[in-house]
C-alpha cells in the first residue's frame, strides 16, 4: 500500500489524538494530589481480576450483557495486534511484529485473530440486540452507544475484507492454513467470480485496508469525546483504584492549614476522581439497585458522575490555562486563574443539594461498578463542603448535629440516661453488667451504640444480646452513661469535624480503659470501629454480634434452643454495612437456621445486591419528601418472599422496616426482629429469668 498516505494517516491520527489526550489529562493536574502507586503488585492483581478478568461482568442478573462486553473486550485485545500489523503493511508488505512470523506465532495468531474477530462481531451483535430489544432499565439509551457498536462491527468487517481479498490476490499466502474466516471470505469472493487478475479485487483489498485504518484512527480520535473513552482510562483507573476497605471514608486533616474541608469546586476533587469521571461508561450497573434512584429521588450515581464529567469538560479551557500557569508561574497563579470561573458551582449547583442529600451510602454503586468508581465518596466530599464550609444542609440535621455535640446521640436525648437500659435489663432478672471502672480486666467491650441505648424498639436487641453473652459466660463490660457515639452518622452526613471530635474522645476513653476487643450489634458502629478507627491510629478486634452468637451456638455455649415462636417462613434482610461493606452474609443465616423450626427464605435482592432500608448515610434523621419511601419499597420486596418474620441485624434496618410495616398496617401479618432476639426467645437456659 501507499507508504506516504499511511504515514500521513499515522501522523494526523496520532497527532490529533495526542492533542485530545493532553486536553483531557493536563487539566487533571490542577486537581488535588492523591498518591495511588503504593502496593504495585496487588494493584496489578486488581487489573488482572477486574480488568482482564472482567470480574464484575458475570453477575447473577447480568450475565447476558456481561458476556457481550467480555467478547468485545477480549476480542479487541487480540484484534488490536492485527491493526498494528495492518499499519506496518502500509509501509512494508507482509510486515509483522517480532515472533509473529509464519514459523513462530503467525499461524496461531491468524487463527486466534479470526476467532476473536468473530467474538467481537458476536459481542457487538448481542449488545446491539440488548440495547434495541431488551432495553435494560439501568442503561442510558443513546444513539451514541449504537453508533459505537456499528463502528466496531464495521472495523471487523473491513479487516475481514482485507484478509479475504489478500488471499485471493496471493493464492499461496501461508496464513490460509489457519485463518478460517479469511478462507471463508476468499471462497465467497471466488464464488462471486472474483479472480486475482480482476482489478476489482485489488480495489476491494484497498477498501479493506484503508477502511480498516480510517475507521480505527477515527474511532481512536472519537474516544476522548464519548463514553468509549473508558477504553483508554479504565485499566489505569483500576490500577489506581482506592485500596481502602469499601466502607471507609477518607480522613480529613484539620491540623493542616492548607487543607480543604470538602469539595465545592471540581478541582477540589482528587485527580483520580477526575479520571473516574472520564472512565464512566454509562452502563448503569450502579443505579440498577440504587435505593434513591429506584424510589424517584433525583440521585442516580451514574448521572452524578456524568454531570461531574460534563462540568469538568465545561471547565476544561480554564483548567487547561491554570495547569499551564501552574507549570510556568506556580500554584498561586494557577489558583488565581481558577477563581475566574463564572459558571455554576459544583456543590449545590451542577450537583443539586437534593441529589447530594438523597444518598443512603448503601454502597451498591461502589461494589457493583466494573470500574470501581467511588460514587459514595464523591457524595460525601460534596456533603463535607456544604456542611463544613457553607453550613448548608437539610434543616432537620441541625437538631441531629446538636444532638451529637451536646448529648453524643442523634436524638439529643439526655446523655445521662444512656445507660438506663442496664436497669431495665436487671428488671428482667439478668445479672448486672459491669462497668470497666469496677472491672479493670475484661475480654470484651460490648459497645451498645445510640439506637441500642435510646430506641425503645431496638433496646430489646441490646438486652437480648447482653443476656446471650451472660448466658454463655462471656467476660464483657458496658460503658453505660459514659458511652459516646462512635461518629458514624456525623461522618456520613459530611460533618467530619464533629465526627473526629467523637472519634478522638472514644479513642482516648478506650485507651484509658484498655479496650482491645469490641462486640457491637450495630453494623454501622461495627464498620466504623473496624474500618475507620484504624485511620486514627488504633486497631481493635471488632466482632459483630451475629458472628459472636454464631460462634457461641457452635461451641454449645448457649445450650439447647427451643422451637421458634413465630409463625411462617423467615427472611433475612442483609444490612448494607454488615453485608455489602463487610461481607458478613453467612453468620446471620447460620444463626437463623440453628433455631429449630425456622424456615429461611431468600429475597430476590439479597447479599451483595441487597436493597437498603433507607436509613443509612444519616437519611434516618432527614425527611423523605421526594418520591416513594425506600423502607416501604424494601418491605414490599421482603413480603414478596411470603415470609411472616423479617430477621435483621441492624438498628437502622429494624427501625426503618418496622416503620414501613406499621405504615402499611401490616403489624399483625409480619413481624421484624433482630437475630439476637430470635435466639434469646429460644433459649432454654433463660427459663429461670422470666
Amino acid at each position: 500500500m501507499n507508504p506516504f498516505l499511511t504515514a500521513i494517516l499515522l501522523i494526523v491520527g496520532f497527532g490529533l489524538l495526542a492533542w485530545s489526550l493532553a486536553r483531557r489529562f493536563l487539566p487533571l493536574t490542577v486537581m488535588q494530589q492523591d498518591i495511588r502507586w503504593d502496593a504495585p503488585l496487588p494493584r496489578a492483581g486488581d487489573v488482572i481480576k477486574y480488568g482482564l478478568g472482567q470480574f464484575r461482568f458475570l453477575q447473577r442478573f447480568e450475565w447476558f450483557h456481561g458476556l457481550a462486553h467480555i467478547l468485545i473486550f477480549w476480542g479487541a485485545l487480540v484484534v488490536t495486534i492485527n491493526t498494528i500489523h495492518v499499519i506496518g503493511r502500509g509501509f512494508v508488505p507482509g510486515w509483522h511484529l517480532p515472533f509473529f512470523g509464519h514459523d513462530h506465532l503467525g499461524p496461531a495468531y491468524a487463527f486466534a485473530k479470526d476467532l476473536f474477530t468473530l467474538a467481537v462481531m458476536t459481542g457487538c451483535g448481542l449488545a446491539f440486540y440488548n440495547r434495541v430489544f431488551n432495553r435494560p432499565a439501568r442503561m442510558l439509551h443513546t444513539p451514541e452507544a449504537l453508533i459505537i457498536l456499528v463502528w466496531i462491527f464495521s472495523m471487523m468487517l473491513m479487516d475481514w475484507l482485507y484478509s479475504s481479498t489478500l488471499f485471493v490476490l496471493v493464492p499461496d499466502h501461508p496464513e490460509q492454513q489457519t485463518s478460517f474466516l479469511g478462507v471463508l471470505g476468499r471462497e465467497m469472493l471466488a464464488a462471486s467470480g472474483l479472480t486475482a487478475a480482476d482489478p476489482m479485487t485489488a480495489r476491494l483489498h484497498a477498501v479493506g485496508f484503508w477502511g480498516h485504518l480510517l475507521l480505527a484512527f477515527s474511532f481512536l480520535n472519537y474516544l476522548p469525546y464519548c463514553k468509549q473513552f473508558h477504553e483508554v482510562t479504565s485499566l489505569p483507573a483500576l490500577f489506581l483504584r482506592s485500596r481502602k476497605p469499601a466502607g471507609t471514608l477518607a480522613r480529613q486533616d484539620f491540623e493542616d492549614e492548607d487543607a480543604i474541608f470538602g469539595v465545592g469546586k471540581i478541582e477540589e476533587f482528587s485527580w483520580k476522581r477526575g479520571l473516574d469521571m472520564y472512565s464512566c461508561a454509562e452502563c448503569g450497573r450502579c443505579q440498577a439497585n440504587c435505593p434513591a434512584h429506584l424510589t424517584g429521588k433525583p440521585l442516580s450515581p451514574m448521572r452524578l458522575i456524568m454531570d461531574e464529567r460534563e462540568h469538568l469538560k465545561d471547565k476544561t479551557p480554564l483548567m487547561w490555562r491554570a495547569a499551564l500557569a501552574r507549570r510556568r508561574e506556580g500554584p498561586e497563579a494557577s489558583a488565581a486563574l481558577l477563581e475566574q470561573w463564572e459558571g455554576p458551582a459544583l456543590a449545590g449547583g451542577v450537583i443539586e443539594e437534593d441529589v447530594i442529600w438523597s444518598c443512603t451510602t448503601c454502597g451498591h454503586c461502589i461494589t457493583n461498578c466494573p470500574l470501581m468508581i467511588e460514587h459514595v465518596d464523591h457524595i460525601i466530599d460534596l456533603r463535607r463542603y456544604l456542611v463544613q464550609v457553607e453550613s448548608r444542609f437539610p434543616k432537620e440535621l441541625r437538631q441531629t448535629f446538636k444532638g451529637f455535640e451536646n448529648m453524643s446521640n442523634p436524638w439529643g436525648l439526655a446523655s445521662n440516661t444512656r445507660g438506663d437500659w442496664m436497669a431495665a435489663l436487671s428488671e428482667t432478672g439478668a445479672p448486672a453488667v459491669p462497668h470497666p471502672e469496677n472491672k479493670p480486666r475484661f475480654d470484651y467491650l460490648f459497645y451498645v451504640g445510640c439506637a441500642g441505648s435510646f430506641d425503645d424498639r431496638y433496646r430489646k436487641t441490646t438486652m437480648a444480646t447482653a443476656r446471650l453473652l451472660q448466658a454463655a459466660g462471656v467476660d464483657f463490660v458496658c460503658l453505660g452513661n459514659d458511652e459516646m457515639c462512635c461518629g458514624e452518622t456525623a461522618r456520613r452526613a459530611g460533618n467530619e469535624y464533629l465526627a473526629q471530635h467523637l472519634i478522638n474522645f472514644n479513642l482516648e476513653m478506650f485507651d484509658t480503659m484498655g479496650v482491645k476487643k469490641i462486640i457491637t450489634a450495630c453494623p454501622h458502629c461495627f464498620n466504623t470501629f473496624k474500618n475507620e478507627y484504624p485511620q486514627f491510629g488504633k486497631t481493635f478486634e471488632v466482632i459483630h454480634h451475629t458472628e459472636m452468637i454464631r460462634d457461641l451456638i457452635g461451641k454449645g455455649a448457649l445450650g439447647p434452643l427451643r422451637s421458634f415462636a413465630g409463625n411462617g417462613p423467615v427472611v433475612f434482610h442483609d444490612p448494607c454495612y454488615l453485608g455489602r461493606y463487610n461481607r458478613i452474609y453467612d453468620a446471620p443465616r447460620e444463626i437463623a437456621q440453628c433455631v429449630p423450626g425456622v424456615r429461611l427464605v431468600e429475597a430476590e435482592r439479597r447479599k451483595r445486591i441487597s436493597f437498603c432500608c433507607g436509613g443509612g448515610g444519616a437519611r434516618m434523621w432527614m425527611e423523605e419528601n421526594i418520591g416513594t419511601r425506600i423502607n416501604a419499597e424494601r418491605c414490599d420486596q421482603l413480603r414478596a418472599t411470603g415470609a411472616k418474620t423479617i430477621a435483621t441485624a441492624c438498628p437502622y434496618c429494624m427501625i426503618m422496616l418496622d416503620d414501613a410495616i406499621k405504615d402499611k398496617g401490616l403489624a399483625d401479618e409480619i413481624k421484624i426482629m433482630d437475630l439476637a432476639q430470635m435466639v434469646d426467645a429460644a433459649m432454654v437456659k433463660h427459663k429461670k429469668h422470666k
Partner: protein
Amino acid sequence: MKILVAAKRVTDPDMVIKVKPDGSGIELSSMSFKMNPFDEIAIEEALRIKEDKGGEVVVAGIGGDKTPTEIRYGLSMGADRGIHVNTGVDPDSDAVARILAKLLEMETPDLVFLGKQAIDVDDNQVAQLLAEYLGWPQACFASRVDIEGNKARVAREVDGGIEVKEIDLPGIISADLRLNEPRYPALPAIMKAKKKEIKQVTPADLGVDITPKVVIRKMAEPPRRKGGRLVADVAELVKLLREEARVI
C-alpha cells in the same frame, strides 16, 4: 454599629436534672453544658445586624473557668472578640447586671443584646436591671428587631397580638425564642474563632462586689406525676373535678 451580647454557660436543657441529696443545688458532676439558647438567638440577631450595617459584635461571658468554651462558640458563629469576667461561681442576676453596667462603660456599645432569660435558673432579670442601672431604654422579649438610624423598632409577642416598641439607641434588647434561628457555625469560622481574642477580666478589676443578694435555701424535685385515671361517666368526672381536683 458596635453590639455587645452577653452569653451564659448553662446546664444543657436536654439533660435529666437531679437535685443534690442535701437540696443545696443541682448535681453538676455528670452534667453537660452549653450556651443559653436565648443568648445564641441574641448573638445571631447581633450578627445579622452587623452583616447588614457593618460594625463589631463583642460577646461577654460572666461565670466560672469553663465560660470561655461558650464565648468561643459565639466567636465561631461570627462574633469578633470576647470578654470573660471570671466570677468563679455563677453570680446572681443583680451582680451580672452590675458587672455588665461596668463593662458597658469600658466598651461603649451602641446596642446591647441579651437572651430574655437563662434557662437554668429562669430569673429573667438582667436586661431590666441593667436598663435601670444605666438609665437606658429597654425592649424585652423581642420577636423582631429593625434598626433604623438611631432607633430600634422592636416587635414583641404579647397575649393576643404583637406589640411594637421604638427605643432610642444606645438601648437594651432581650431576645425571645422566635426572633431567629441561629446559624450552625461553619468549619472555617470555627478555625478562625480559635485565634480570636478573649479578654480576661475579674469582678475586682471592674470594682464590682459579687456577694449574692439572692441565696438559694433549698432545692427539691417536684412531685412525680401520677398516672391518669379512667372514669365511668361524665357525672363521676364532674364530681371528681369538683371535690378532688377542686377546679370547678
